């Protein structure tokens, strides 16, 4: 119980900081919408083509801008704050979990704004997939990448290099789940894949939290 209480307090703290700074709501979401708006300008004026690529663009923008959402942690938490939490004896695993919860929640908000915008701009069929699981997966990978690259000179380019290829295998079943069901392939394979990947990442994240904290020093 203490673990979850600490994790929720960390999450509440991060959400309060986000509420004050509005980094995701006021910067990342409008930037993501701008990207959705710009992509059709680079395509031929073919409504069918634009409607076909719409769902794919939703997932691409979710991945690329979702990384920014998770990387904002490195900006909101200074080394001094991390040191204070460590001296206070805050469980690194609970801290990791709390940060993942915050990032996942913010990603869900990001997707909730992006999805209707995609329907309006591209007029696609209803967007396939499981946005909640995708958000959780990106949040887990992003949080680990932030810790692994913390303090490095090339972290702004290195962290996306780590997150993007690791996230795609997660997003592939997430994005194709509904289509697989319609084709009659069933829900078991994508669900198992996503479940396995998210569970493995969550366990690894919690198990390596102590080392991650030392790495992010």
């Amino acid at each position, binding site marked *: 119980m203490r673990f979850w209480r600490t994790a929720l307090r960390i999450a509440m703290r991060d959400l309060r900081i986000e509420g004050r700074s509005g980094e995701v709501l006021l910067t990342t979401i409008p930037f993501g919408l701008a990207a959705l708006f710009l992509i059709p300008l680079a395509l031929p004026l073919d409504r069918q083509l634009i409607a076909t690529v719409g769902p794919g663009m939703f997932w691409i923008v979710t991945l690329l801008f979702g990384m920014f959402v998770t990387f904002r942690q490195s900006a909101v938490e200074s080394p001094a704050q991390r040191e204070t939490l460590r001296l206070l004896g805050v469980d690194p695993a609970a801290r990791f979990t709390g940060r993942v919860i915050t990032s996942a929640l913010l990603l869900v908000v990001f997707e909730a704004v992006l999805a209707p915008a995609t329907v309006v701009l591209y007029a696609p069929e209803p967007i396939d997939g499981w946005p909640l699981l995708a958000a959780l997966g990106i949040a887990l990978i992003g949080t*680990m990448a932030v810790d692994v690259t913390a303090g490095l000179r090339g972290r702004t380019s*290195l962290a996306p290099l*780590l997150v993007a290829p*690791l996230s795609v295998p997660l997003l592939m079943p997430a994005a194709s789940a509904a289509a697989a069901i319609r084709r009659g392939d069933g829900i078991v394979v994508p669900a198992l894949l996503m479940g396995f990947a998210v569970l493995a990442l969550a366990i690894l994240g919690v198990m390596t939290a102590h080392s991650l904290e030392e790495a992010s020093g």
Partner: protein
Amino acid sequence: MNLRYALTAAALVALAIGFWLAAGTPPDAVQGEYVRIIHVHVPSSWVAFLAFGGTLLGSAGWLITKRARFDHYAAASAELGVFFTALSLLTGMIWGYVTWGIAWDWGDARMSSTALMFFVYLGYLALRRATLNPVDRARRSAILGIVAFVQVPLVYFSVVLFRTLHQTPSITTEGSTMESSTLRAMLFGLFAFTLAYAAFTTWRTRQLIIEAELTATDAEHAGSAVTAPTLGGRP
């Protein structure tokens, strides 16, 4: 003769025999001589998986024991894994071009996921390069080395889990669909490439250990060159 030399000699002999066996296999009715690409493609893919497994073990070993040797082994294994993944992708593309008519098929789950695995481990090597402190580097890359392995089973089982152009495993517990001499040559190729992996890894690990020792020695010399400033002219 120490282990490294023995492994290298054994690997060279095994590779030579493997190529001789591959050259002696009959051409395929449909694929013609191009079928021989599998004698490089399949063992390369196998060694890539093996190497990333080695990185996983080395990473876990470092996190448990904090012995630098495990970190060097993980790094050496990742480098080889990236090399053999690239070789596997390249040979697969050549084979795909002559057999399917296209070098790259976006609908193929195995190709796409293998390319992603390649980029993940390139990221691993980039992380190592970006971290200068050896202990810090070992810790960060050990964590990534474990996390990155999560997708290796996904890559391996992608041909079974998804509808894809890539063929499913030709060798199962129920037997093989391959011609006997081709199967024999391919199995020997797997053995030869595994020996080559072992030989390369031992040499590269040794090289990384020497590099680390030299860096430590350099650091000591650089530090010892700094002396306290003297304020001349006053007693």
